[in-house]
């Protein structure tokens, strides 16, 4: 079990002929991911690691059922390529691309919402359901996490590895790990994903890593308080150091108006704690908090 991705999920890789995508595809196929097709305009008929390549998602969808898309898109073609992806109606699209202009990012999110497609990212590293499937470049070091029943949701793609390793070493294992993206605006929020975790019988708890900035954690607190999430949440929120520095030299206060009610790491921790989440002060606290929450360790 797990959320979003399992061994049966049929994945299309958009931008599959690029260096990063090609390398990830080879490793993810070897891991067991069911990558059924790829897209790269002008490359129809080629194969990458045996995966057939099409000019567009529309063309690929004529030959393959596509459940999900992992997208490596140059920022300049992001919007048009995303429209092509959304038109074939995958359950989700995971956008690896970094450096997408904010206006294009927000317009893309609006288009995804209108199409009923979950957009994860942009600027993220991937999803892994250990032992079943992975996309992107999350979990290439396959030794670092074991299958289990704790979901890991993280703002940082790189730090997802550290969290997954810690959770695995502590004897819990990971149901699914998702890097939600590091941009100021991201598609699927923590709150969106914990609701999937609530519905997943293979997930007993969530470990989440957030940072000071846009107030995504307040939505988690709201979901817990409203009873939409009843499993334990262990949260680590970093970014206290920002309190020591002057905020952006141009738009300090207006930026704060736009980021949300109180975007300091300490305020986020307070909100989560008040809602009933287990709040870690440091990385090392996490295993103890999972124990305190009564989360069962792996029986495997």
């Amino acid at each position, binding site marked *: 079990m797990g959320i979003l991705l399992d061994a049966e999920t049929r994945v299309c890789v958009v931008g599959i002929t690029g260096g990063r995508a090609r390398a990830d595809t080879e490793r993810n196929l070897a891991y067991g991911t069911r990558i059924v097709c790829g897209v790269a305009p002008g490359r129809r008929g080629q194969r990458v690691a045996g995966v057939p390549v099409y000019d567009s998602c529309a063309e690929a969808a004529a030959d393959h059922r596509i459940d999900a898309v992992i997208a490596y898109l140059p920022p300049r073609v992001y919007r048009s390529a995303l429209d092509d992806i959304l038109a074939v109606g995958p359950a989700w699209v995971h956008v690896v691309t970094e450096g997408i202009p904010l206006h294009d990012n927000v317009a893309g999110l609006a288009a995804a919402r209108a199409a009923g497609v979950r957009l994860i990212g942009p600027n993220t590293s991937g999803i892994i359901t250990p032992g079943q499937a992975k996309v992107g470049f999350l979990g290439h070091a396959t030794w670092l996490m074991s299958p289990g029943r704790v979901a890991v949701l993280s703002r940082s793609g790189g730090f997802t590895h550290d969290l997954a390793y810690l959770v695995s070493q502590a004897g819990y294992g990971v149901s699914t790990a998702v890097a939600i993206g590091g941009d100021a605006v991201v598609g699927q929020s923590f709150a969106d994903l914990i609701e999937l975790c609530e519905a997943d019988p293979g997930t007993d708890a969530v470990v989440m890593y957030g940072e000071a900035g846009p107030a995504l954690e307040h939505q988690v607190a709201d979901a817990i308080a409203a009873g939409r999430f009843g499993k334990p949440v262990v949260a680590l929120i970093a970014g206290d150091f920002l309190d020591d520095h002057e905020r952006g030299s141009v738009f300090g*206060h207006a930026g704060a108006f736009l980021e949300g009610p109180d975007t300091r790491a300490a305020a986020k921790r307070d909100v989560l704690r008040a809602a009933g989440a287990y709040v870690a002060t440091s990385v090392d606290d996490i295993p103890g908090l999972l124990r305190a929450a009564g989360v069962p360790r792996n029986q495997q």
Partner: protein
Amino acid sequence: MHALTEEALKARLSTRRVRVPEHAVIGATDDVEALAGRLPGPTMVKALVPLTDRARRGLVVRAADPGEAATAARAMLGSTVAGHRVDRVLVEELAPDGTEYYLAAGFDYAHGVPVLLFGPGGSGVEGRAAPRRIPFAMADPGGLAALPEPLRPVARALVEEFLDLRAKLVELNPVRVGPAGAIVLDAKAALDPDVPAPAGAVEVGVPDEADRRLRELARSLPGGTEVRFGRLDGTVGLISAGGGVLAIVHDALRRHGLRPANFSDVSGGSATTELLGAVAGEVLALRPEGILIVTGITSSISVTGFAEAMVAALAPLRDRPDDERPVIVARMAGPDEADAARIMGALPHCVAVGRDTAVDSAVALLADRIVARRGDGNPA
């Protein structure tokens, strides 16, 4: 990151029929008296630098007449405030009294939608209740009917500018509404670094020479690796592979009463190791009392290659007297971390740990060693 300064944005707004005060822009080599004399009445004199709180910094001054305006302008020109040199000042006529409003267009980051912000304006806006948020669709901005009538054309122009510039935020504060209509007294735009900057944009922040050198090196190398570096005011040098652990590291330093001497982020591409070596050289030049070398758990770089680069870059430490050598903790996490630890052993006062030491525990170890070193000179 770039921003548009006040006069550049006001010039753009003027082309959209938004009223702004009569003004003159004076540069360091201009005839200050002649330009100030074009505006015969009382004026405001403002330094054109991308800083908040210009009034608090003495960079916005009211002048009773052209003579006072010229004096104020001369005092500002050539000065340096918070690292920004004042090369130009704006002198503009005082606007008639009226009600002041705050108007901005930006994004609600948590919900990923564009919003118009509207509320009482003027100085100290941050101390008041948060302005009202009016979401709008980028394809068809609406919602302007909720605003007072004289503000609607200004808000329309604001949204058009926001969309044209593809800006992160455009802010007008205050917009003063009097009997003659609305007039924009101050305006700023924060631009998206992922969008080409328009004409008239200025760089925000003080350029860092080390950052410039490293970026040039990154551009000269194949592989598309990106690097950022900045000098901070502490004594712990940071060399980090990947940005994911940065916030954890900085917070952990803070908990242990330490402050970083720099920030650095090397990520992506295939020239990571070479750039990390260059970062180490810059850190060494800061003469920190401690150095933290850290990777998250990753398979994207070889930590033995990373360790070799660190040993090469930090080799000059061997030539320093022992009491001038920083204590070093290297947290290198990867399948080859044991080999990396062996390599790092070539550096004086270096302890290497691997993935079973969490990032903030590595910081704790460094803090303990720094405290011991301060106490009796022995970091062991």
